């Protein structure tokens, strides 16, 4: 019997271990703060956050698949829905909505109304240009790469920059077919 696809991540979220939201927010804040001190350039910090997110994503996908009971997605549309409704709920406790599909279904926007990473945060003038939540885009990119989808994830709207929501644009570049890492005759 095929596992039942959960409609949302609520059930999973209720069962996973959680930490205090403020502890989480302030820990992430401390990381960003330290990166800003160490790397000095805002651009470099964005890059580093993305890389950290990627490293998280390639590991997190396993945990996600193990605990969430989602079955194989038939297309990218379903993938996006699962990320928004199950993935975000499971790991961040909020769910996103998926909109702005382009004609051929290759790119869409994930919109977050609420984002626990940014509680208390206000961007000072010295940090303009910083994508504070850039770790999220890295996580999605890393996680999708592990399930053979090359994607490009960019921020479109950011509340810290005065927009009304958080919007991540996820673009599917190509689907890599699964390959064995070794040849038969080796």
């Amino acid at each position: 019997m095929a596992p039942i696809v959960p409609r949302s991540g609520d059930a999973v979220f209720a069962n996973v271990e959680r930490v205090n939201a403020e502890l989480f927010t302030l820990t992430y804040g401390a990381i960003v703060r330290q990166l800003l001190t160490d790397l000095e350039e805002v651009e470099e910090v964005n890059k580093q956050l993305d890389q950290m997110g990627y490293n998280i994503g390639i590991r997190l996908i396993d945990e996600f698949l193990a605990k969430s009971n989602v079955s194989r997605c038939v297309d990218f549309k379903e993938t996006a829905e699962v990320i928004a409704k199950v993935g975000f709920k499971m790991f961040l406790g909020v769910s996103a909505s998926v909109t702005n599909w382009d004609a051929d279904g290759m790119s869409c926007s994930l919109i977050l109304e609420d984002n626990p990473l940014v509680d208390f945060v206000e961007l000072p003038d010295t940090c303009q240009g910083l994508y504070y939540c850039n770790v999220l885009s890295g996580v999605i990119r890393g996680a999708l790469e592990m399930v053979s989808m090359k994607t490009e994830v960019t921020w479109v709207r950011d509340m810290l920059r005065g927009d009304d929501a958080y919007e991540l644009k996820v673009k599917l570049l190509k689907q890599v077919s699964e390959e064995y890492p070794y040849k038969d005759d080796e």
Partner: protein
Amino acid sequence: MASTACFIIVSKNDIPIYEAEVGSAAKKEDAAHQHQFILHAALDIVQDLAWTTSAMFLKAVDRFNDLVVSVYVTAGHTRLMLLHDSHNEDGIKSFFQEVHELYVKILLNPLYLPGSRITSSHFDTKVRALARKYL
């Protein structure tokens, strides 16, 4: 609303990190300097007084002519100081408590370095609104 009121926040290292003239009287350049001077002079008294009581709100610690200095010392020894000519003690206390709350929010911002100048315009607007409401 009080005709004269000057509000400053002094960090625990004795550096002013926020200043605002919140009185309704017309702004005068030399008055602002005088206000700073009076508040600065009051710091010594605050230092002595702060350890004699467990209360955070120190009422009228110092006066200069008709101007009175009230101070609120946070747990981290940041001092919120208000120079005023009104005698609305309850209002001042509420003002301090609400500004304290705002200050804690500023401190929780990971991108704010404790002890540095508060540049947030949001904070500034909120403080001025509170001053209009309570003083």
